[in-house]
């Protein structure tokens, strides 16, 4: 990446597309629902095509930049598109199209209220997600990170009842506490050091720049950053995620399996890979603790997931575990480990959104929320449960599904670091994944129903089923077409 960055407007346009769509959505309003949904689709498709149009350039090794505004004398609000950022942006924007279709089916199927508000804030969240994906320095990423926290609050509290209040309080409490009390001091620390942040905050500038600090300070900064981005769901700051499951399922699917949580781990990845840099990380004394913490998160959350009967909560704990993989990859600080962690953002996104789509489709079709109620549902909703099976297998990490690729590289990264125990943790957790995900599909397909009230159940509306079938196919596609992804993640040239 030695050549000069290309100056291009497209990152900004991809950020603005949902905001423009938002105006259309708000003006169309509740009375012209079809027009409103058309605007959402237009925004999503525009965003995805803008993001995809940058793919050839970035695959060719170029970096695209666009400076919006000078925040501080030395720190601009700067968009920069590089491999990992583009990969994340692709995943989020393409899955937004699928989620939009799914939302139409889900929200209309359940006759939800305030759909205009729902679509408006959804668009706002996606705009913020693009901002994070394309951020070139710490301050920019912080701006969009906060924007995402606030813009998802109305979605989490969508039901406007007591449960929503509890969920919303946990959600904002965790996210704003960490970002305002841990991140902000860490940012200002990097800012005042030496040069007004010009080098210290930029992701592309020489990594290893934090070597200037003493070992202890580096460790403090690492802790502040890792926990400051609480959207990454690292234990013990994970409880906001199960709490946020009170939101409608499309929100859980796109935001709490793809956009929001992935923004968290993506930020952590950025800090580890592009702020500290692998050389500094490997030499750092306490850095093993972070690795251990990620492993503990993976194992503990999988164990908790085993005991959850509420399907969405089980998936939420599974998400926490899978986020642990991404953080683990970043802490490994080897090329393959970090690449694996970027890949896992994409692979897990596709698998987990399928699972959430299925959970929502089951709820729309039958009103069922619990795993134990699913007996015999497989015969009545074969497509949904089939997709659930595929999604589960992908999350577990079996070939020929996407989840296998990223886990493979994570394991390779661990071997590069001579950390056999990490490989062992990966194996055990895959086994745990099997235990908590497969029984769902098995119950649905192979256990006979014990009551006959369910006779009227059939597949959910087509608008719900098509997206989940597509994302299930996507899980296969990610395996067979992983070549470009590997290049974006920086594993192959």
């Amino acid at each position: 990446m030695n050549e000069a960055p290309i100056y291009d407007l497209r990152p900004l346009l991809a950020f603005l597309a949902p905001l423009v769509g938002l105006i259309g959505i708000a003006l169309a309003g509740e009375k012209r629902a079809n027009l409103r949904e058309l605007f959402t689709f237009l925004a999503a498709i525009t965003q995805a095509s803008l993001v995809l149009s940058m793919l050839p350039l970035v695959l060719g090794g170029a970096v695209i930049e666009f400076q919006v505004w000078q925040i501080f004398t030395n720190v601009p609000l700067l968009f920069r598109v590089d491999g990992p950022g583009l990969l994340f942006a692709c995943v989020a924007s393409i899955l937004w199209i699928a989620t939009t279709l799914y939302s139409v089916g889900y929200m209309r199927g359940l006759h939800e209220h305030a759909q205009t508000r729902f679509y408006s804030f959804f668009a706002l969240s996606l705009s913020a997600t693009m901002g994070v994906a394309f951020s070139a320095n710490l301050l920019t990423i912080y701006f969009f990170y906060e924007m995402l926290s606030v813009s998802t609050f109305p979605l989490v509290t969508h039901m406007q009842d007591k449960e929503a209040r509890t969920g919303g309080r946990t959600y904002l409490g965790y996210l704003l506490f960490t970002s305002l009390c841990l991140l902000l001091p860490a940012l200002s620390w990097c800012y005042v050091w030496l040069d007004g942040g010009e080098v210290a905050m930029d992701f592309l500038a020489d990594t290893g720049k934090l070597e200037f600090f003493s070992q202890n300070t580096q460790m403090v900064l690492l802790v502040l950053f890792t926990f400051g981005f609480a959207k990454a769901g690292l234990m013990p700051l994970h409880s906001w995620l199960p709490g946020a499951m009170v939101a409608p399922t499309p929100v859980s699917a796109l935001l709490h399996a793809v956009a929001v949580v992935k923004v968290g781990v993506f930020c952590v990845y950025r800090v580890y890979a592009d702020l500290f840099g692998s050389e500094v990380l490997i030499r750092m004394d306490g850095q093993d603790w972070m690795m251990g913490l990620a492993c503990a998160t993976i194992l503990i959350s999988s164990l908790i997931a085993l005991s959850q009967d509420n399907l969405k909560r089980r998936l939420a704990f599974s998400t926490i575990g899978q986020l642990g993989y991404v953080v683990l990859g970043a802490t490994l600080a080897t090329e393959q480990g970090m690449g694996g962690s970027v890949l896992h953002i994409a692979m897990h996104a596709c698998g987990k959104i399928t699972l959430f789509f299925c959970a929502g489709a089951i709820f729309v079709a039958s009103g069922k929320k619990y795993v134990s109620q699913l007996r015999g549902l497989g015969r009545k909703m074969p497509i949904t449960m089939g997709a659930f099976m595929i999604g589960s297998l992908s999350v577990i990490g079996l070939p020929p599904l996407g989840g296998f690729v990223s886990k493979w590289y994570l394991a390779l990264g661990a071997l590069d670091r001579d950390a056999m125990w990490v490989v062992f943790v990966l194996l055990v957790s895959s086994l745990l994944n099997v235990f908590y995900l497969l029984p769902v599909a098995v119950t649905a397909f192979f256990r006979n129903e014990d009551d006959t009230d369910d006779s009227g159940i059939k597949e959910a509306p087509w608008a719900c089923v098509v997206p989940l079938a597509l994302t299930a196919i996507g899980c296969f596609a990610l395996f067979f077409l992983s070549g470009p992804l590997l290049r974006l993640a920086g594993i192959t040239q």
Partner: protein
Amino acid sequence: MENAIAWIFIFPLFGAVIVSLLGMSQKKICYPISVFSMIGSFVAGCVTIKQAIESPNHEVSYLLGGWTLDQYPRGVGIEFRGDLLGALICLVVLGVGLVVSFYSKIPVQEETPGKEPLFYSLFLLQITGLAGICLTGDAFNLYVLIEVAALTGYGLIAMGSNRAAAATFNYLILGTIGASLYLLGVGYLYIKTGTLNMIGINEVIVSNGLMDSASMQVAFILIGLGILIKMAFFPFHAWLPNSYCNAPTTTSSLLAPLVTKVMIYVMIRMVLTVFGVEFSFESTLWADVMPWLVVVAIVSAAVMALAQREVKRMLAYLIVAEVGYMVGGVWIYNYYGLIGSIFHIISDACMTLCLFLGTGIILRKCKTTHFDGLRGLFSKMPITMAGFFIGGFSIIGLPPTCGFFSKWYLITGGMVSHRWEYLIVLMFSTMVMVVLFFRLIERIHLAVSESGQNLGHGHGDLGLTEEQTKFEEGPLSMVIPLVAAAAVVLLIGIYNQDVVNQIEVFLEPFNLPKGTVD
């Protein structure tokens, strides 16, 4: 416009006279005259700051009555000095005054019918006093102008509800004590230095070596205490909540953003220009004690704000906490801290304005600002609520509002001067602000009572009649100023670098320590 700095005062001063004379017979004429005077004054303020930025020594000076300042020690005459700091804060005062004067049309008619001439003449005199405080170069004139602002303030507050009279009396007693202490301190200064001109006093302190003089110390403490009372620094804040809650809407919208902030300006002026950095921070105990008082002040004010169940009262205590921020930013004795303090004066004025303008509209529509009466306002008055919460987010310090940037500099200052206690308290109060504003959002947005009872039947039913949630914005003459204030909050955030650059130019000669990290 060579003498723009004088025009700043001529407009509101003569406006006040005209309003009180002509307004007797023609009540309708008061509003346009006040708005016109404010526009004129604001334009003059803009010209002044432009002149200050462009002039080689970054200040504009105007000698009232043509007294010369050539002799030593500098000056007996009345000097108006607009350096970058003074001109900047003065512009904030005039801007807030302009917005509030637009806003005042309906609330003044409704809340104080028949008293328009009185109200507007006091309003304009208040602006004259506050702008004068920012621009005067003379320590005694500062006292006079503080009293002008205070006396008109008492009048404006007393026009409010039934309980306003008692609150005003409370304010009057404390305010007079504060001003008297200040005056006493100025007396000491005059005895020791033989001059009242701010720069003159500083020249004498430096050249005559008055650093260790006991009477100077006494003067410093008296002036400091007087200012602290005037700015409602905890525990001298008792006058503030009642006065602002019972005052008419226009009054609280004008006083809440300005009075305390202008007094912070006076403190910075005293510390930097009059006594000098060396005297203020190094030869008194004050500098060691203040950061800890700030800690107590911020925590107590934040906790008291948490206990309120009424928007106006909650905001009043927030102001007290914000005063703690700014005082802390000065006394951690650091370059970044002072940038933060000065920037926070500007941004806090704008965001408090936003909040109080919004509260005024809510109060008019709902007849109450108690948390229980606000449910469903997001669908009823979306624009007002958006404006209000932009102010709220700015108080929390979410980017890209101006509150984020002032907090950023304050945090940086605390960090590089290793004042961890200040840093922790800032974090604590930030979290309290998060709770305050998101609790408010909850109460408006959700169908849940405070004790956790579901009020509606689910699916977004708020348990209200259709009439209560129908779209019905406040009058345009109130909503437009609110939108303007919210826009300013965002614009100052976006263009923060332009403001900070001017503050940096102002602070350059003082050689404040920049501190280190690590």
